[in-house]
């Protein structure tokens, strides 16, 4: 057994982290494209980096941490499905942004292309769309009319698992970001003549957030490994990861806002961006479905007559 990142995985993660920290929001997409991020999961034979799902996890945690206003994870996923498709070049180069369709034609980030998971995995261009109001200002939502056709794969469950894993990884990164902001804030904010971070109640909120995040992160990494290694329990591993990451991130959002006091309850300070991204990504993770999948794997379905 071994459960550490390789040097290559660490190097890629750090490169992405540095790039995201140093690049202004308006040029993040192009910078990521230049780094070759959108080709990262494309096989080497097709000009990509040939990274596996487990390689992507640390990278996607960084994407979550930075929460850029773009469908980065979705475009990486789509590019990996396009072997032999004429659209591969423009997707892996970042010329086209790909969103994953939600129910009823909801298209996050207003992607140029939309990955639809219904009877097959399909990549289509919206016919027309209207703008919806989005909770997350960095993740605009369109309601689009989507055409049929454009099949790129018939592995709907497998693609759904990879999308869930990507959301889970980003949620861990978002949680880390919110906790980091909170730790910095409670050390500066003074009340009663001392930093509020010296109060036990505040400390325990922070410790609880860390506890959840630290126990979600290995589960997400392990799920990436399970997918990449095609283990028999890969679907369940992703369900555990999605469940743990979603709950860790949403509870961290709650605790982070609380520990910031009124500062957490405003759009004039950056915390809200990460909380809203966490809520938006959480909405793509169906907790009931994951609980059912785990229960089924344990032969617990309908255990009571």
């Amino acid at each position, binding site marked *: *057994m*071994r*459960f*550490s*990142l*390789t040097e290559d995985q660490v190097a890629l993660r750090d490169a992405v982290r540095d790039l995201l920290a140093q690049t202004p929001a308006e040029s993040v997409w192009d910078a990521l494209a230049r780094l070759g991020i959108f080709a990262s999961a494309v096989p080497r034979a097709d000009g990509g980096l040939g990274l596996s799902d*487990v390689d992507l996890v640390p990278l996607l945690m960084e994407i979550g941490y930075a929460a850029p206003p773009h469908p980065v994870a979705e475009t990486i996923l789509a590019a990996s499905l396009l072997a032999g498709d004429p659209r591969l070049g423009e997707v892996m180069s970042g010329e086209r942004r790909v969103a994953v369709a939600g129910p009823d034609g909801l298209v996050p980030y207003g992607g140029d292309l939309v990955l639809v998971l219904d009877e097959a995995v399909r990549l289509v261009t919206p016919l027309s769309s209207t703008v919806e109001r989005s909770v997350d200002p960095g993740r605009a939502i369109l309601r689009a009319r989507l055409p049929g056709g454009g099949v790129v794969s018939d592995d709907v469950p497998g693609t759904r698992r990879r999308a869930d894993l990507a959301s889970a990884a980003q949620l861990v990164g978002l949680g880390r970001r919110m*906790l980091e902001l909170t*730790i910095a804030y*409670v*050390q500066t904010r003074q009340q009663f003549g*001392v*930093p509020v*971070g*010296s*109060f*036990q109640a*505040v*400390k*325990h909120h*922070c*410790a*609880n957030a*860390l*506890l959840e995040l*630290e*126990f*979600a*992160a*290995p*589960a997400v*990494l*392990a799920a990436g*490994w*399970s997918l990449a*290694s095609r283990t028999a329990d890969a679907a369940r591993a992703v369900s*555990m990861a999605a*469940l*743990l990451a979603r709950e860790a991130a949403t509870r961290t959002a709650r605790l982070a806002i609380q520990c910031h006091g009124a500062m957490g309850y405003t759009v004039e300070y950056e915390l809200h961006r990460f909380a809203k991204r966490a809520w938006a990504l959480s909405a793509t993770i169906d907790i009931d479905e994951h*609980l059912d999948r*785990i*229960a089924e794997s*344990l*032969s*617990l379905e309908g*255990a*009571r*007559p």
Partner: protein
Amino acid sequence: MIDLRDTEREAAFREQARTWLRANVPSGLSSGDTREGFAEHLAWERLLHASGWAVVSWPREYGGRAASLWEWLIFEEEYYAAGGPHRVTQNGIFLLAPTLFEFGTKEQQDRILPRMAAAEDVWCQGWSEPGVGSDLAAITSRAVRDEGGAGWRLTGQKTWTTRGAFCTHLFGLFRTDPAASRHGGLTYFLVPLHAEGVTVRGFGRLDGDEGFAEVFFDEVFVPDTDVLGGVHEGWRVAMATTGSERGPILRAPGRFLAAADRLVALARERGASPRLRERVVRAWVGAQAYRLFTLHQVSGVLDDAAPGARSSLNKLYWSELDIALHETAQELLGADAALEQPWSKGFQFSLGGPIYAGTNEIQRTIVAERVLGLPRS
């Protein structure tokens, strides 16, 4: 790299452990926290030792198998999966032993470890006192220099000493320099409980078993050779022991994985409402998450990242997981939950988890201050 499968060598070790454990694990032992049950457990511990399975991670010269950390985790998984009973030797082999390996003299190691491994000596922990729990550095039991005897005279009282009424030896902290700072004047002593001046009184834990004891010291002589680490260095030595107590050493994932599997089996057998089914699934997921966290942590240790204060994260997680597992089982049992049976015993035991080894309130503060860097109160 990441590979969560056993290597060939690990798989062979697992198979060997599984085969032996399945053939030898006793069933139906009485509680190890009663006098009769303790004797039954000792017989089991001695069989484990005779077959080389008592202390797998120790060096061979002391009765171990020089198993890797991975193999040790594998052993724990197989031990509890086979239904192995809780280890009445745990405070010696999992808490004192790692501290002895780090701070003990060769003479101490040679003298103490083989008898500990063989369950000839069984060790208990003497830290808490009637007036001292979470604030360990406030202990008042003292040791006074006995120059003539080249040793120390111990006086005071320890309490909440697990299985103290049945153990043969105690490791504990005593104040050797009352003038020094709270943390500065403490020394870590190793004391035989049959020494003159020691009185032990057992009493009931929450479940009524005599799992606790208070230990009185009245000018008990302890030679210099039974000081562990330096004189007045006891705090530093004790912190190494608490690291083992909170981290994955005392509570490896195997114990909780097995409990989670038993919970799932109970739910299948008894039937579970949708509400309880969800709780079963969540508790089972919690056990898997604890395993993955520990595997990740052990990989870090092998890469030289000592867990340090992060072992408080282990402690917070396993203690709350253990309660969740047992509460859920008790609910599944319906009216039978009121009967004394393994789950009701386990439930009551689990409530101690957030208290012993430093309360969870203290652990959260440690995490906030030493892992997250928040200012001390």
